[in-house]
């Protein structure tokens, strides 16, 4: 009806009126838009597609419970197709065109680095569900996966204290997560346990490496020098299947040289015959085999949602479960989906995790998690053999690296800083732009 009135003055007035009324309308009826930024095609689809389904399931469940603030939740799914620069474009599309209130997404660190400047520029909210190398804390990102002190450090402690390991093989895929993690671990092993240089072997392989004969045989030699040896593996994704097959075939038994993996979960194991791998280890904050009612309910819902008895759950799925519940809790607390209000409200929010405890959002945008070590069973599941007595708070900046030792992150007022240097007493400020450029150019 506005179009019928030709006068420009009227148009201005009506636009003004629209401008005033729309937010009120939106508050009442419009659905709350939840962006999902996970690759559905390309190399990362193998890991990320299940996370998209997880968020969709969580949204569906939330809507069955009556939505949020009396409004429906609506998923907005985009496919960044495992293409890192495309992640940034899609994130921009979600925030600018779709105007989503929150985004759940990303898997690889390089894709996260790519969207970081977009998130900060457009003031979005991103929940990142995967264990990562740390050394980052953005005002607009919430890290619900493990930081290194919530996965690798406790795992190495377990190997040293419980298994008695004295020689270490740090094997990883050649990219930022393994390189940073191994840098932290090497420093940690030398400082804490006094491990000598010749007792650490570091090995990097390209993505999707498939010929492991030489490396496995080298590990075997390295481990037959009389000292208890373990492999700490940050080998990523697809390369694991041929790696574990070669281990099995060359007869490396978990009792002799255990392999502790940080990137191998139930989903990765579902592509391998685990018979020869029984006893090899993985460190996570959640295992599908965790014996709690909350977990059984989640698994049942997941099986029903997929209509497939064989589906598995894994750690990043739990991270999304926690992140999603934290976000809804914070929205309820703030009474609005406004990004700034939610950002303030979410710090200190506690929600149940799937292993019978609680996860709390810390001021550095990382959460508290229990750390568990599981042994691979012949049915493709892990049996938990060790667990931290209480939850561990995620540390954005590692204490074991010289350049990050003095940094802390605290997004509460008045500090509001992701990298405050306690020695110099000043905030280093955001360098998301450079980080993104660096990450993308390295790739």
């Amino acid at each position, binding site marked *: 009806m506005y179009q019928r009135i030709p006068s420009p003055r009227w148009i201005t007035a009506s636009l003004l009126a629209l401008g005033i009324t729309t937010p009120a309308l939106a508050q009442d009826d419009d659905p709350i838009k939840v962006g999902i930024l996970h690759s559905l095609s390309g190399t990362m*689809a193998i890991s990320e597609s299940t996370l998209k389904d997880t968020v969709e399931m969580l949204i569906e469940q939330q809507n069955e419970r009556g939505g949020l603030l009396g409004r429906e939740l609506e998923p907005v799914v985009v496919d960044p197709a495992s293409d890192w620069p495309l992640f940034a474009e899609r994130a921009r599309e979600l925030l600018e065109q779709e105007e989503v209130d929150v985004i759940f997404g990303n898997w690889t660190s390089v894709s996260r680095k790519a969207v970081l400047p977009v998130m900060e520029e457009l003031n979005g909210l991103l929940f990142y569900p995967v264990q990562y190398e740390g050394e980052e804390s953005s005002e607009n990102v919430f890290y619900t996966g493990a930081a290194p002190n919530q996965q690798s450090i406790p795992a190495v402690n377990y190997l040293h204290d419980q298994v008695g390991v004295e020689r270490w093989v740090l094997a990883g895929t050649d990219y930022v997560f393994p390189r940073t993690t191994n840098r932290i671990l090497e420093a940690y092993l030398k400082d804490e346990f006094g491990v000598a240089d010749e007792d650490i072997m570091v090995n990097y392989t390209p993505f999707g490496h498939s010929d492991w004969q030489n490396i496995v*045989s080298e590990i075997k030699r390295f481990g037959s020098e009389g000292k208890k040896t373990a492999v700490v593996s940050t080998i990523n994704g697809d390369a694991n299947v041929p790696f574990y097959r070669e281990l*099995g075939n060359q007869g490396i038994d978990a009792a002799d040289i255990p392999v502790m993996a940080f990137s191998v979960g139930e989903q990765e194991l579902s592509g391998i015959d685990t018979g020869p791998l029984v006893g090899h280890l993985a460190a996570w904050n959640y295992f599908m085999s965790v014996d709690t009612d909350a977990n059984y309910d989640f698994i049942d819902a997941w099986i029903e949602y997929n209509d497939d008895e064989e589906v598995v759950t894994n750690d990043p799925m739990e991270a999304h479960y926690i992140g999603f519940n934290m976000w809804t809790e914070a929205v309820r607390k703030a009474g609005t989906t406004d990004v700034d209000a939610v950002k303030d409200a979410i710090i200190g929010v506690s929600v149940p995790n799937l292993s019978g405890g609680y996860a709390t959002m810390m001021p550095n945008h990382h959460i508290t998690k229990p750390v568990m070590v599981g042994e691979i069973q012949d049915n493709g599941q892990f049996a938990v053999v060790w667990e931290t007595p209480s939850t561990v708070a995620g540390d954005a900046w590692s204490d074991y690296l010289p350049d990050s030792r003095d940094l802390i992150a605290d997004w509460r007022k008045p500090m509001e800083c992701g990298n405050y240097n306690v020695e110099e007493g000043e905030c280093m400020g955001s360098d998301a732009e450079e980080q993104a450029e660096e990450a993308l150019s390295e790739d």
Partner: protein
Amino acid sequence: MRIPCTLMGQTRCHAAMTRIVNLWLLCLLLIALPFAAMAQDDADDGQALLEALDVRSFQDKAEAIEAIIQSEDERANDWLQALLDGDLQRHKDDGRFVIITDNVGREWPARDALTGEDVGEISRRELSRIDINNALRSQLRSALSMVELYTGERDERLDAAEGLIGDVDDELADSLESRLDDEADADVRNRLNQALAVYRLEQGEMDAVETLSGSLNSDVRIALSRAAEGEGAVADAARAALVDIEQKLKVNRGLETLYFGLSMGSVLVLAAIGLAITFGVMGVINMAHGELIMLGAYSTWMMQQLLPGHPGLAVLLSIPVGFLVSALVGVIIERSVIQHLKGRPLETLLATFGVSLILQQLVRTVVSPLNRTVTTPEWMSGSVAINDALSLTLNRLYIMAFAVLVFVGLILIMRRTRLGLEVRAVTQNRAMARSMGIRATRVDILTFALGSGVAGLAGVALAQLTNVGPNLGQSYIIDSFMVVVFGGVGNLWGTLVAGLSLGVINQILEPWAGAVLAKILVLVFIILFIQKRPRGLFPQKGRAAEG
């Protein structure tokens, strides 16, 4: 009930916690006493022995296992073996211990752990397994191997004796001496002698070094290095023995690298040989070659799904099935895309690249974006030991043999059959061949089907080595082109030699350059080589070269 410090499975338990645990155990004992008494009535200590296993703490389980070993119960062996295999389970309702005899499906047949009587099938939901960890696993294994040393078959005795090297103490030494007198088999005797010699070496006996010299066993080497650190005649002898051993190890390491190289090479040959036909002989740049390999791998998975419980048979059957599936898809690609782009290599390249993306996404959508499990049959897993330092992995031996068979088959087809003759005729001079009455289109289809089918065969083999997933093909397409170009386009022998030599070069470079750098070096080497000899290792000569 969770006891935090036992959860951590460690010895240094808090004192206060110990008290709580003791109280808790006392309670348990009081509750359990009547039951225990009942079990006693059945004249059985077994129930109590097994009962002790059903605790959360691995430390307590270790003690319970020790108690079973010490009990000299005649069923102990059976229990320990079942515990090791994860077959010892407890019924959730009546608390009875059973041993599962088959754990496929949801209903498992079982027998009573105490009486041995058959108890029929039990749903897996009603059972809880007695979990073990690595430490318990090795404890169980060493306990069982001692039994096997006396009662097992020859191979079991051999393994048991080998496991003892480096683990002999005063007590064991005497019983081993007596065992040695009864042992008939020479190999087992040899192992036992070595195990005893390591023990005697630790006691500082000179003649032990002589027994041990030349052995490639890593425990022997460790013992000798320890002895060599000291002073005196024994240390000198140990040092001399070590030098000799190091020499032998070097030879073995060289042989091992050669084997690794040949096996990697045979994988490269398998992946590339199909391309050698479509690209090399027909001149078609088929970027979807990798996806044809992937389809072959998926056929293996499909056959295993169709034949559950017979992974070996499924793998054998998937050889023809994989060939046919990939050949069929190849024909479809040839008819729908490639034939229209004849003589336009750049367009063919782009179009087939598109086809490869379509095929990948198709598999993602139809099957799943997740990797599929392909089970390795029993006869293909493990390795054959040549000596203590050198063993060859079986799956790769099979794949090498398979590569040879495929290669010989292809050579025979190209040289000895009418199809081969026609293919060679068409590639050398299409117009002339046609005027001689050869139906060139039919030959095109058959050749492309053959090349695609061989890619499918490569997929069947690769399913035993790597991921069966939508991305499988991508990782092999570059390597395949590399091998074909390096070997000389249009020459099957060139592909063979190029594949094998690239594999060996790669494996030689890898230990000192690292996997990433080794790959780069190989690529640089090929680029330089192609600069010098643009037609590859074995260029085609004469008129064919112009075709």
